[in-house]
């Protein structure tokens, strides 16, 4: 399944089966516990904020529902997509490394090498490689080989190095001689790229930790406002009628909640932007 066909934001509903299929492309199935967590957490967070700031049931319930919908429609597909892409990238990296090792034996043809490494791959890539191998075995006139390799690599177009590696394989099939240096070079770069990607992930996780901590601190601050009220007037009266159920509070909360959510939404979009080979830029005005 092509990942870009999963444009959940533009569609009205998320197909849960589609997500299941995607998440099980490399063996591991999505657990219902995870779904509940990912839907529940944003709902709880937003609910807590709105509850502590307004104390109206008719604002809390929409907030909880909104949080749940956000988690289900936006966060959940992104998590599934990220896991799929990571697993797929790792599978490709493993394939490239294995293939380079096996191809360094000049007596092996490409078909034999693919056959040899086939047992070490798993999941979706395994299936696709099997199909490729069968098609290659049927007939291998040059145009057909080019077309087959192109079709195989088309799905992973954003992984530039992998596609170049496939081109090297194609060249080897055509020419009959191994250009092992180029393949080693590409594999090495792919490993480097993976390493850089991991570093990038670590950095993003640090930011995620920061945002989590800051959110907890904000909840703490709001609780401290309650405390202030308690200490200054001996009850919740000051907080409730002076702030929460007052025009000043309405204005502040209606500025704070949307702007906080706006920043958070931007952060989530950047956090799940994993590709290190591509940057989404509008080149048209």
């Amino acid at each position, binding site marked *: 399944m092509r990942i870009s066909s999963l444009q959940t934001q533009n569609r009205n509903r998320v197909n849960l089966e589609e997500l299941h299929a995607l998440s099980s492309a490399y063996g591991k199935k999505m657990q219902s516990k995870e779904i509940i967590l990912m839907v529940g957490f944003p709902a709880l967070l937003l609910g807590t904020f709105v509850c502590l700031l307004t104390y109206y049931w008719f604002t809390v319930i929409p907030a909880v529902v909104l949080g749940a919908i956000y988690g289900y429609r936006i966060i959940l597909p992104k998590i599934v997509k990220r896991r799929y892409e990571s697993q797929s990238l790792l599978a490709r990296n493993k394939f490239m490394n294995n293939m380079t090792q096996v191809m360094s034996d000049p007596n092996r043809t490409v078909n034999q090498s693919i056959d040899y490494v086939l047992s070490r791959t798993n999941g979706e890539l395994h299936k696709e490689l099997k199909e490729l191998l069968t098609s290659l075995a049927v007939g291998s006139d040059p145009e057909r080989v080019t077309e087959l390799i192109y079709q195989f690599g088309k799905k992973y177009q954003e992984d530039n190095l992998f596609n170049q590696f496939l081109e090297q394989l194609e*060249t080897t099939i055509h020419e009959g001689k191994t250009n092992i240096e180029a393949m080693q070079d590409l594999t090495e770069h792919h490993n480097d790229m993976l390493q850089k990607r991991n570093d990038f992930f670590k950095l993003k996780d640090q930011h995620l930790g920061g945002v989590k901590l800051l959110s907890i601190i904000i909840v703490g601050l709001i609780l401290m406002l309650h405390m202030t009220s308690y200490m200054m007037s001996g009850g919740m009266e000051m907080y409730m009628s002076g702030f929460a159920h007052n025009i000043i509070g309405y204005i502040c909360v209606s500025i704070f909640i949307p702007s906080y959510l706006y920043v958070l939404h931007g952060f989530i979009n950047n956090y799940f932007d994993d590709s290190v080979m591509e940057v989404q830029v509008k080149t048209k005005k």
Partner: protein
Amino acid sequence: MDSANNVSEPKRNGYLKLIPEKNLYELREMNNSMQDILMWEKRNVRRAVLFILVFGIFGVLIDFRFAFLGIVFAVLDGRNQFKKVSLVYQQFRFERQLQFFKFARLLIPLLKQTGDGVNLNAIFIRLVNRMPHDIDKNLLQKLITDMSYYSEDFYPFEVFANQMSGSENSVLFMQTLFDLDQGALDLTVIERLGQIASKEMMSGIDQIIAFKERKFSLLYTKILMSVVVLMFGFGISIVVYQIGEMGIFF
């Protein structure tokens, strides 16, 4: 050559005089036709006029000072538009460089494949269909036609490098390619090309990561700014509440 070389040539009359030289150059570089730029600038002017009109009406009805506010908004909006052009242009350059690396990496296996006697024309024709964007396809097609027109001249290669990427390394790359076209039959040249391209590719990845990291830079400030509103509001509410407690009503 249409875009890059003719940039300062078009007559700048009427609306186009309003666009700063730098922004006009950037817009032209991004393959916008003069017609489109004119339309864009007309839209900007229309919006500015709308601002001034709406606030002018307010000024007549409520307070004349609103009219000045309209002018301020119009100027700010116009400046914002130009700033946006520069921002998009930076990203555009970056994207172009990336596309050039991709082109280079696609080219190298094909060069190696030919072995002896490099026929760049045939290779480029094969490459045209594999280029991901239409702009690049057009540029490459133009290079193919120009190559036969200006044979034994570096000029078309240079134009291609400048239009596609504009970086120093891309010109160097095209220079090596030109030498290859002129009959330098040394495989180490191709090897070197490959090394240039992959080095650029890796630095491209670094750049992308740095670019994406920068998006996180103002994160905490933004969140804290939104909290400040809350704190400030609570402070005011305390004051108002205490005054209310004392029995003074507004």
